[in-house]
């Protein structure tokens, strides 16, 4: 799920930037530093939308750098256990398939794919029901539920399932479900 949240960060700035454009410089440095990063606590920072306040700078002993406490608003993407979301399949193999929902990767193991869907190798590997009515392959759109997340310092990785009511295929490349 995407969220709009307030975050804080201490920004260090070299004295050469002090001048009429101090504020602009701080903001562009903040955007450069945080956009695209990921933390286990707040998820992926997608975009900074506003800078709320820039506090009083504090000169650091010995270096001349100044630290400014900044409060800003940003859009983050944070997956939660139990959340249901839609995703695009990126790779299919006999262990299961990988899907992407925005910046996050989700793996659906073949144990968490309904039993009537079997792996079919070939040019386009896929999971198919025996009558061929449902077919999950690369670029299919799939609705899944997140059952677990693995969080490390710079990445979030999810495990998903499609073995539940109202989950599974919602669209195939080239249209039709």
């Amino acid at each position, binding site marked *: 799920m995407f969220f*709009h949240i307030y975050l804080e960060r201490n920004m260090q700035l070299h004295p050469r930037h002090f001048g009429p454009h101090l504020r602009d410089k701080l903001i562009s440095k903040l955007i*450069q530093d945080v956009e695209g990063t990921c933390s286990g*606590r707040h998820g992926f920072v997608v975009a900074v939308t506003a800078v709320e306040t820039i506090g009083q700078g504090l000169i650091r002993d010995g270096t001349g750098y100044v630290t400014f406490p900044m409060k800003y608003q940003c859009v983050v993407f944070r997956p939660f256990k139990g959340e249901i979301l839609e995703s695009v399949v990126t790779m299919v193999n006999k262990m299961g398939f990988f899907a992407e*929902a925005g910046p996050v990767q989700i793996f659906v193991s073949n144990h968490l794919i309904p039993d009537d869907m079997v792996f079919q190798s070939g040019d386009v590997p896929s999971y198919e029901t025996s009558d061929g009515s449902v077919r999950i392959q690369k670029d299919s759109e799939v609705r899944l539920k997140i059952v677990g997340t693995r969080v490390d310092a710079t990445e979030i990785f999810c495990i998903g399932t499609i073995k539940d009511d109202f989950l599974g295929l919602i669209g195939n490349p080239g249209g039709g479900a």
Partner: protein
Amino acid sequence: MAGKPGQAIEEEDARELKLGEDFVKAKCLMNAEVALILQRKYEQLQTFSEDAPNQISQVFEKSLQYVKRFSHYQNPNAVKQVRDVLSRNQLAEFEVCVIGNLCPETVEEAKALVPSIAKKGRMDDEKIEQMIQDLATIKTFE
């Protein structure tokens, strides 16, 4: 998370709206809303900056592609109406956005996707049905 020593960290579970202290009061965004925000920011970057491609992170690009593909409402007015309809029903932010993103078509589906709405007698089937119909109407006329 910042759990105190000796205190078990409460496990998060979106189905019961346990999102952890950082997110429990945070504002959720529907895919359609994120699409509006990101698209605007993207256009601003294109016009005001000469090295735009370098300033756009992979996370930004993937998110934009994703929300464009999966937002069920394109028109900004429709997006606002959807939020109004859902907010009227005293749903939590998170529930509002899950329903807005997934657009359930039946009462059963809505209850399966967001089990918390049917708990504690918060919403009976009739109310859910009404809500789903309101959403469908917005989609038809957007």
